[in-house]
């Protein structure tokens, strides 16, 4: 069995989401990787070094830049139907955009956001915002999976010795073009791979207070900053900070929820964190039902005190 892994990359480097995907793919068989984009030679070399990767298919073409699904999906479907049994992508926005398009081209059902590999065709996945876990068996011969990256350990970046081989696909489908991106730059760790996350909700009351109170605490802890949907909708934080069913799924070692009530949609994104700390003035807030350590009180007093004493 051969599993083809979608390599997610940025600025010439392999992103961490790829490493967790390789771990999931290794449970299925031999791991091949696909690097697509323009000028991706260094990414291909880095992918070949990931422990467990035996072959790297490199599609170096401007048509594959920015991972436009219309151009990339036929390339992937071609490689999978010729050489592989599985296509495995991280359940990032890129993976979620591409994988179902590949699945439909192959006429197979995708299994989304898998939490575990039970055997060659059986997987577990969360449904209903993580309130239930379904064990599903795929009857398709080729299988398309997306992987919940927080559910698998990261494969080692070094130790692999994959063969790099160029591959070509149909190129530009002529359906879409990339116009531009507005990527939020942050000095802090990336939300989905951070060890510690400090997250704020609507209780901050304003964008100024959100930044003035939460950021010093995050910096003290070396943490990434997250937010609830309410805080994002209110404009306190950019939308890529959102943790939850419709935002990012995180599972850090420490998740500090400040002024977040704990709606099921938010819990869906963070309840697999190792230790959850909640600071909220409402002692009946649902967040306290999942928190390991809870502190009831006014965040405007407690957060500065916490920051100072750490």
């Amino acid at each position, binding site marked *: 069995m051969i599993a083809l892994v979608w390599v997610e990359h940025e600025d010439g480097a392999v992103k961490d989401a790829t490493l967790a995907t390789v771990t999931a793919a290794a449970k299925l068989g031999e791991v091949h990787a696909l690097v697509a984009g323009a000028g991706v030679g260094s990414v291909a070399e880095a992918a070949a070094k990931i422990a467990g990767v035996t072959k790297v298919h490199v599609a170096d073409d401007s048509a594959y830049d920015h991972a436009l699904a219309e151009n990339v999906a036929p390339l992937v479907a071609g490689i999978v139907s010729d050489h592989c049994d599985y296509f495995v992508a991280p359940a990032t926005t890129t993976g979620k955009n591409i994988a179902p398009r590949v699945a439909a081209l192959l006429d197979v059902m995708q299994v989304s956001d898998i939490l575990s590999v039970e055997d060659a065709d059986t997987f577990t996945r969360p449904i209903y915002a993580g309130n*239930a876990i379904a064990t599903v068996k795929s009857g398709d011969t080729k299988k398309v999976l997306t992987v919940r990256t927080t559910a698998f350990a990261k494969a080692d970046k070094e130790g692999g010795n994959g063969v790099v081989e160029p591959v070509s696909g149909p190129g530009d489908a002529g359906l879409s073009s990339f116009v531009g991106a507005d*990527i939020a730059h942050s000095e802090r760790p990336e939300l989905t791979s951070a060890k510690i996350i400090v997250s704020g909700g609507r209780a901050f009351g304003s964008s100024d207070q959100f930044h003035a109170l939460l950021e010093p605490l995050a910096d003290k802890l070396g943490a990434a900053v997250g937010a609830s949907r309410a805080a994002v909708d209110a404009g306190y934080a950019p939308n890529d900070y959102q943790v939850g069913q419709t935002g990012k799924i995180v599972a850090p070692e420490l998740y500090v929820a400040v002024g977040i009530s704990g709606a099921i949609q938010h819990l869906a994104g963070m309840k697999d964190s190792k230790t959850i700390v909640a600071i909220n003035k409402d002692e009946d807030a649902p967040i306290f039902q999942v928190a390991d350590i809870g*502190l009831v009180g006014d965040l405007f007093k407690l957060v500065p005190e916490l920051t100072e*004493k750490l």
Partner: protein
Amino acid sequence: MKLLVPVKRVLDYNVKPRVKADGTGVDLANVKMSMNPFDEIAVEEAIRLKEKGAATEIVAVSIGPAKAQETLRTALAMGADRAILVQSDDEVEPLAVAKILAKIAEEEQPGMIILGKQAIDDDSNQVGQMLGALLGWGQGTFASKVEVEGDSVSVTREVDGGLETVKLKTPAIVTTDLRLNEPRYATLPNIMKAKSKPLATKSPADYGVDTAPRLTVLKVTEPSKRQAGVKVGSVDELIAKIKETGVIG
């Protein structure tokens, strides 16, 4: 242009799902069902495009049990012009849904199909992308802004690091993210008016689509429960407790 808007009837997002004791699924007997929240955003966006003069007709489609009619009536009350119910009492997987929608699209020839990015019951996030592949159309997934410009559409997408804009040739697929718009409430007069708007009932067989599932659900279980935590009385105690976990020194 004509717009096609697929909508799904799902367990209301405020209801905490209960897993059935026999592990066959989630208990949907006597619980509140509603339109999938992302689909409400899709309907709203279609109506706004019509109000701006960029669209001429809105056709809402649902694939599901007879009761999905209620979901379609909601879409009609919000402002859709007519509806198609493809009735099936069995669960229809995203791939089969996409195949049925592709057939409807061939019949109706819409300029754009606007879908929710995912249904909050199966959390698959697949139908829009699959439909794009089946029709050979461009896809603007996770849209937070949609602008029709002649024979193309510019879609701003919510991606992991921020936002990204793509330009698609129409006809095209758009899937909605939460921040695209705030859906309107249907007013009582519009709910009354919606009752007389046309609603056609079809079956998957009318479109020649085999809805046999490709995936078998072996069991559905509750997620593992977290151990009950402790409440502390002060910041000092909080810091001491966090230090016990060893995450910070």
